[in-house]
């Protein structure tokens, strides 16, 4: 029989034992990392936890993070900004909402920074992160982000319109933010490599954009600056702003070709044209035309749903082909010179999710199989888009190359799409101030010549070619004047002719990025009848000879509005001069 004392001792021992086990359980529960090891961490989460664990004082830091809420390592990603540096960002949730964001700067011995919506003192990079809406990645994953966080904006880094009130050049800085995947088995060393590679792609993207916009100067961002754009030779601030945005679109599109890049954002750090001089913050987001574009996932998904397979004619999402590509050019298959257009690739078929990368290639129909690759990258929502600036007229055909995740060999789709890049309509340049001014100068020469030859009634026509420049402006290049003719008999008239081949800029005509001025029209003057022989009557406007030359290229002639006769004043308000247009309305495509 046990004595009461023994029973007590046994009970006490059991209590101590149980308490001891209980304490051990509590200690185990407190080990937060163990909790995540046991949870369903994905590759990103595992890599992130391993990295955090390798840093000094991680336990204290992690405890601070956990006090804020429930961290989600699986949703970690990295962001790079030339202005602000590189960070790993960790969302922390309360319930279903992200209320805190932890920034891990990519610098030695740096402390993570925890931010919530009520934080008042936080560095500019935090503002930049939210200004650039980098958090949209989480929203795409159905995570809600605290509204207070989303309203963070820059303090004072906006260039006001007042500073750009003068004519060009305009200074337009942008803040670039690139979100990229947190690698499996990532180490800080890998992130350094990524940062360097992204920086190089930003630089190359800017160089590529420069091809489309030679009037834009840029300052390579390096590691501590914004991308500073200087837009030259534009008439208005509005055009400068639009040019800068398109420039950034093209540049950032190149950055998207890196397979680990998720998003690229360009925040426009200048006052919007519509904002006038009142200041106020202006932030914008380069859409780059990329399928990997920011915040437009839903749009892309619905856009994709509306497309049909060119092979089986079912919806792309229901396409039963092995793999198919639908290629579209927008806004339509006839693109004007110096205008932007999008090439969209929609991927269908049972293997569509296996497509890792797509590549877009172009050639003119006149040069079959001389394909030129113009871009490529990862599709999003089975869609990839590329923005181009049209400056090489002709009929083009587009094909798509692709790589499967399981096979790096590039295959090509059998589907192609044709589109035309058209010369500008004569109405686009007929009344351009540069053209009008040039006409006035030619006319002055013409009158001067006639006046100085009045004793012999001699006149001659003066002319030029009208060029469209890559920046969208027009210019004129004078040609040899026409032969001298004496207006001393019935039917006497002047002529002028010039060959486009003598003035066209030579270049490779199958280059989609061709950036040489293009001849879009001809222009010439007729002449006053002031010093013609008595009695001579002239028609006005384009002559038969003029029209014969204008069957492939639009013509402009500077002449009086109504019929004239010898003795009429050179400058006659009752019969004013005007620009007549004749011939084709657009230069005919030949190359």
């Amino acid at each position, binding site marked *: 029989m046990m004595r009461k004392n023994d029973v007590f001792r046994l009970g006490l021992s059991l209590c101590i034992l149980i308490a001891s086990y209980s304490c051990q359980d509590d200690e185990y529960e407190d080990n937060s990392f163990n909790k995540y090891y046991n949870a369903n961490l994905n590759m990103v989460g595992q890599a992130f936890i391993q990295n955090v664990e390798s840093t000094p004082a991680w336990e204290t830091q992690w405890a601070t993070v956990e006090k804020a809420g429930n961290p989600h390592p699986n949703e970690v990603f990295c962001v790079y900004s030339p202005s602000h540096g590189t960070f790993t960002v960790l969302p922390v949730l309360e319930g279903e909402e992200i209320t805190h964001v932890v920034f891990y700067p990519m610098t030695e011995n740096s402390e993570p920074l925890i931010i919530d919506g009520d934080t008042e003192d936080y560095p500019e990079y935090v503002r930049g992160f939210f200004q650039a809406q980098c958090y949209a990645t989480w929203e795409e994953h159905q995570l809600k982000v605290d509204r207070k966080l989303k309203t963070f904006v820059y303090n004072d880094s906006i260039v006001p319109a007042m500073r750009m009130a003068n004519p060009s050049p305009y200074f337009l800085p942008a803040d670039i933010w690139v979100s990229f995947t947190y690698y499996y088995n990532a180490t800080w060393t890998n992130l350094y490599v990524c940062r360097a590679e992204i920086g190089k792609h930003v630089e190359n993207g800017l160089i590529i954009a420069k091809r489309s916009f030679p009037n834009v100067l840029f300052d390579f961002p390096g590691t501590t600056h914004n991308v500073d754009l200087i837009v030259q030779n534009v008439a208005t601030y509005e055009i400068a702003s639009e040019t800068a945005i398109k420039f950034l679109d093209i540049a950032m599109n190149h950055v998207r070709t890196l397979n680990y890049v998720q998003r690229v954002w360009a925040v426009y750090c200048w006052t919007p044209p519509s904002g006038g001089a009142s200041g106020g913050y202006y932030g914008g987001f380069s859409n780059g035309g990329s399928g990997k574009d920011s915040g437009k996932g839903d749009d892309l998904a619905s856009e994709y749903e509306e497309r049909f397979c060119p092979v089986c004619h079912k919806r792309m999402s229901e396409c039963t082909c092995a793999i198919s590509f639908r290629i579209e050019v927008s806004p339509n298959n006839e693109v004007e010179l110096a205008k932007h257009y999008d090439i969209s690739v929609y991927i269908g078929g049972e293997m569509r999710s296996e497509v890792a990368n797509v590549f877009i290639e172009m050639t003119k129909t006149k040069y079959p199989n001389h394909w030129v690759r113009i871009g490529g990258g990862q599709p999003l929502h089975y869609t990839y888009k590329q923005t181009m600036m049209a400056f090489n007229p002709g009929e083009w055909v587009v094909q798509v190359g692709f790589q499967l995740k399981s096979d790096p060999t590039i295959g090509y789709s059998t589907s192609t799409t044709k589109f035309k890049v058209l010369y500008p309509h004569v109405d686009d340049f007929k009344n351009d101030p540069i053209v009008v001014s040039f006409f006035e100068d030619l006319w002055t020469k013409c009158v001067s010549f006639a006046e100085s030859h009045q004793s012999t009634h001699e006149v001659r026509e003066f002319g030029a070619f009208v060029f469209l420049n890559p920046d969208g402006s027009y210019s004129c290049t004078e040609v040899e004047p026409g032969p001298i003719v004496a207006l001393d*008999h019935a039917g006497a008239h002047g002529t002028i002719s010039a060959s486009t081949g003598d003035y066209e800029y030579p270049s490779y005509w199958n280059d989609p990025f061709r950036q040489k001025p293009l001849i879009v029209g001809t222009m010439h003057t007729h002449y006053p009848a002031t010093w013609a022989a*008595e009695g001579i*009557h002239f028609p006005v*406007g384009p002559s038969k000879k003029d029209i014969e030359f204008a069957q492939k290229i639009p013509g402009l002639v500077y002449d009086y509005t109504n019929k004239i*006769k*010898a003795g009429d004043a050179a400058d006659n308000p009752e019969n004013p001069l005007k620009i*007549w247009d004749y*011939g084709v309305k657009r230069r005919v495509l030949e190359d």
Partner: protein
Amino acid sequence: MKTLLFIAMILMAIPGMAQQKKTVNVDSLSEKKRTEYLTKVAEKVVKHFGPGYYRKIRPLVIDKITITPQDTISPPYMKREFMGRTYYRVRFPYDENYEFFPLGYAAEVIIWADTGIAYSVVFGNEFGVVDINNPKIYNDSRYIMQYEWQPPETRELYKLIHR
């Protein structure tokens, strides 16, 4: 002596008499006579200044035009010098299956209504001569227009003029 003086006076009066003969108030003529007169003058002008443009297709197309500020037909130089005056425009039709003239006629002669004197001629090639009653012009062969045939297909070319 008296005889010589008489002959001299006769000779001096002849040009004036001749000039008087040329002046005809066309408006005062009956329609038939007016048409005959205008046709005769116009034929003479075209045969003289541009015989290659003379066509036998009849009737000629005759319009009466008064030069006013609102007038959109008369050229500025006529409006400047002859505001308020009336003229007859006589046009020579042509065979469109054989040739083409961008103005739609082979020749056009302007004849003043109050004097019946021809003022200008414009040919189908759009060129012409004004003040044709001036002897200096009338008698100068440099004002005679040379004819150049243009096939009917030329019509398509002229559609490229955007007036």
